Structures are given as structure tokens and as C-alpha cells.
């Protein structure tokens, strides 16, 4: 039996954790309702003459969840610049020597080749993925508004410039949904994997805000 000594460190502030769960919830709703809008699979067989407005309501849920998602993205971008050290985007992008090393280290780590001590913030591979996810979120938001307000002159202008028409925007919106499904699957798996491998409490960190590291880290106070 090997024994590690763990020290509890504060990693993420409350706003960061709240936006995480808003992302989780709104993405779940958006993916479910969005897929339903693509293929409304459970209503045709029901009696006619009902007054439940299934598709209209599901579209409403989709739009509402979209606005909530947009709000969470806004807060997250704020934290990327004004949050604590772990929350800042620069802490986890491979833009300096430390993070470049960490980027390759993370890949070797996930390939079981060379293990890597978890750091307090995100590793550089995760940070890069979050940036990509943010950019795709922006595409989703713009295409979403373009589809939602097709008659508004300004959305029409931008929508045309970016996507070249409603149907193309719909297509882009639909395909990027699968990125979010992919992201959610990998994200959850990697979080659990890290927890199992290193015992840092990564999963609970996004609830409690604290991580456990089994080395002394001078830069952490």
C-alpha cells in the first residue's frame, strides 16, 4: 500500500463553478431540443387536436437555453481575463515555454507513456480545447441568432457574410452540435480518468472548488 500526502488547495472560484454547471445544463437542453428540432421524432403518432404545441414549446426551450448559454459564455470570458490564476485563459494556453512543455506532457500522460503531475489549474491541452470550444460556441451563437431572427436586417447581413444563407447556417449549426456531444463525452471521461489516476479530486473540484495535490507547490499559497 502506497501512501501519498495530499494538501488541499483552492483552485476555482464560485462564479467559475456556477458557469460550469450552467454550461452543462444548457448544453444538455440545447443538444436534446436541438436534435428534436432537426428530427421531431415523438409526436406525429399522437392524436390530432391536442393543444400542447410540442414543437413550438421545444423550440422555445431551445431559445431560452441558448440565451442562458450565451450568458454563461459571457461570464466565462470575463473570468478568463479577471478571474483567479487558474481561471485565466493565459494560465492554460501553450503560449509560453512552461505551457508548451505541459501541452506535450499532457498528451504523453493521456497515452500512458509518461505520467505527469496534475497542476492546480487546467493542463495546456485542456486549455487549448476550451479555447476551441469557445470559438465554436461563438459560431453556434451567431448561427443561432441568424436562424432565430431571419428577417432582421443586421443578422441577415452577418449571417449571409458568414454562412451564405439560412440552410448553410442550419447545416453548420447542426454539425457543430456533434462537436459538443463529442466534447461532453471526452470531458467527462478525462475528468474521471484523472481522478482515478492521480487522486486529485478533479471531479469534486468543480463542485467544491478545491483540489488535492500530493506534492508541495511553492507557487501556491
Amino acid at each position, binding site marked *: 500500500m502506497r501512501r501519498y500526502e495530499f494538501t488541499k488547495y483552492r483552485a476555482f472560484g464560485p462564479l467559475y463553478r456556477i458557469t460550469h454547471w450552467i454550461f452543462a445544463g444548457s448544453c444538455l437542453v440545447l443538444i436534446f431540443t436541438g436534435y428534436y428540432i432537426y428530427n421531431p421524432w*415523438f409526436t406525429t403518432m399522437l392524436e390530432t387536436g391536442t393543444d*400542447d404545441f410540442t414543437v413550438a414549446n421545444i423550440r422555445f426551450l431551445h431559445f431560452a437555453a441558448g440565451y442562458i448559454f450565451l450568458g454563461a459564455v459571457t461570464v466565462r470570458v470575463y473570468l478568463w481575463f479577471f478571474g483567479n490564476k487558474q481561471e485565466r485563459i493565459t494560465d492554460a494556453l501553450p503560449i509560453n515555454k512552461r505551457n508548451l512543455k505541459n501541452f506535450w506532457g499532457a498528451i504523453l500522460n493521456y497515452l500512458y507513456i509518461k505520467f505527469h503531475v496534475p497542476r492546480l489549474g487546467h493542463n495546456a491541452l485542456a486549455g487549448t480545447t476550451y479555447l476551441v470550444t469557445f470559438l465554436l460556441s461563438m459560431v453556434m451563437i451567431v448561427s443561432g441568432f441568424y436562424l432565430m431572427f431571419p428577417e432582421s436586417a443586421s443578422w441577415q447581413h452577418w449571417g449571409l457574410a458568414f454562412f451564405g444563407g439560412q440552410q448553410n447556417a442550419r447545416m453548420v449549426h447542426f454539425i457543430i452540435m456533434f462537436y459538443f456531444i463529442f466534447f461532453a463525452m471526452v470531458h467527462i471521461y478525462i475528468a474521471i480518468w484523472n481522478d482515478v489516476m492521480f487522486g486529485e479530486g478533479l471531479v469534486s473540484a468543480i463542485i467544491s472548488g478545491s483540489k488535492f495535490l500530493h506534492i508541495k507547490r511553492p507557487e501556491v499559497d
Partner: protein
Amino acid sequence: MTASREKNIADLRLTRRSFIKGCAVAAAALGLSESMVPRLLHFQECTGCTESLLRASHPDIGKLILELISLDYHETVMAAAGYQAEENLRETMKKYQGKYLCVVEGAIPTKDGGVYCKIGGRTAMDILAEVAPGSAAIIAIGSCASFGGLQAAAPNPTGAVGVRELVTGKPIINVPGCPPNPISFLGTVLHYLTFKRLPVTDDQGRPVFAYGRKIHDHCERRAHFDEGRFVEQYGDESHRQGYCLYKVGCKGPATFSNCPAVRFNDVEQWPVSAGHGCIGCTEPGFWDNMTPFEERLPEVKVPLGEGSVGSAVSVGRKVALVTAGAIGLHAASGVVRRLVKGTAKKDEVRED
């Protein structure tokens, strides 16, 4: 008594048809017609737009040509032919320099110097370049003249383009559709006759009075859409019930046009009321981005395998499956590794 009452009511009633007729007559009486000397140029096309226009009823084409406008050159309906026709075109162009409306039907091929469409020995590009600069405005009738249409569908072998790609510095109104509703075209012309300016357009040059709304937003089947009652397959019970055609590929939600409101050629019908979804014919590139017409979303090329084509949703499902598989494999190899080597030793772990 009932009969006489009905007669009275009928007498008092102003139908839409007589109203528009009245407007047209009033416009003619005001002498608005003089400024209007349109030239219809046919390029790479099927003449369907003219066919559609010939079936117009308020005003009908006879009234339009003989009373309202002076149509000096129309390759389908003019009496002149050959040299005489070309002469007509040149003559009136000179005479009405800067005043005529140029109506273009059909796409203009640009590849190999535009040799794929020639009239009287000259390429469509040349003719357009000659006629366009002297016009007051250009109306592109139909999706081909507006956006290239079928000829411009991938791989676009003749390099066909719409008028807006070639002509700059002239007001260009697009009246797309395959074919466009004659009401949208005549509405544009009458608007110009009446107000001496072109109607307000959207970003794609389409007059908003006709193309300002999505089909989906004033479709008679919309209530079924909102309720979630859909045709699953052509000819099924839901199809007979007249449910929404969304699931059999109706492109109404992506298409801007007035079809459900004005319908076609006085028979009060349009495609959706006849039981087939809209195919999105007023949108740019609809042969590429609206096909297959009976599917929700266009098929995308999958770079895996030789030229294989799959629908967006099957691509998505594959992504999800491959991800799940990769996760399973990764987890399994971790377990196997642990069984073989035991837990990670402290000296195996590197610091960041």
C-alpha cells in the same frame, strides 16, 4: 330576395383582382408608361420564367406589353427575328439611353470567354456588357439570372454566374424563383413605374415586399408544425391529413418568398398545398445547399473512403460512436496496464 342581396353585395365588392387591375389602369392613365422601355435578355436558361410570366393575370402579359410598357426586345415574344431583332435592340438602346429597364433571364457563363452561350454570334457576356451600362436599372428575373441557378450548381462546368457578379454600378433587383412568381416580377416593374424608383431590397437584392418573409412563417401547414404533426412518408396517413412536410424535407424554414401568400397563377395553389415541400428555389445556390430536396439537411461529403457521401446526421453519429469506442479502448488499456505493471510509481510521475 337572397339572390338580389347577393347581387348587391357582389356589386359592391372590390376583388383583389379588380383592385390590381384598377391600379394598373390608373398607372397607365397617369402616363407612367413612357419611361418604361424594358429589354429582356435571355441567356443560359429554360425560358421557364417567361412561361410563368406569360401566365400572369394582373395585369396579364398582353396588357403589360401593349398598354403599360413598351417591350422593345424580348427574344421569346417579339415578332422580329434575326438581323431585324438585333437592329431593334441597338436602335432602342440608343434612343432610350439611360432610361430603359434591362431585364435579364438566365445565367451568364463566363468560362472560356463565355462561349457557352451565344446569341447572334455574340456571347452573353458581351451582350450584357453592351446593354447593361445604358440601362436605368437591371431586373434579374429567376434564380439563374439572380444567382446562377441550376447552371451554376457544382461543379458549374460553364462558370455560370448571376448578373450581380458581372455588373457593377447599376441598381440590380433580383427576382429569384424557379420560376419566380409573376406577381413578384410585375410588382417590381409596377413599383418602378409608379414611384420611379426600385423597391427596397434585402441583402441579396430581392425586393422585401415579396421576399421579406420565410415561407415557413406564413405557411398554412404551420399549425401542424407547431403541434408536431408531420408527414413521415409521402402517401402515408399523415400526408393525406395534410400535415406539415418538414420531415420529408420541406425547405420552407430556410426560404424567403411570398408563395404561401400570393400562390400561383390564379389557381390558389402552391407546392406545399399540393403536398410537396418547398425546395427553396429562391435561395442562392439552392441546387447545392437544398438538395436532396426530400431530406432535412444537405448531404455532406465525408473525406473517409472513396468519394463517399453521407448525410450530416450519419457523420455525427459516427463521430459519437468513434468517440465512445476510443474512450472504451483508452479505459481498457489503462486497466490492462495496471494489471500488468501495478499502479504508477512515484518516480514515474514527472512534475510540470
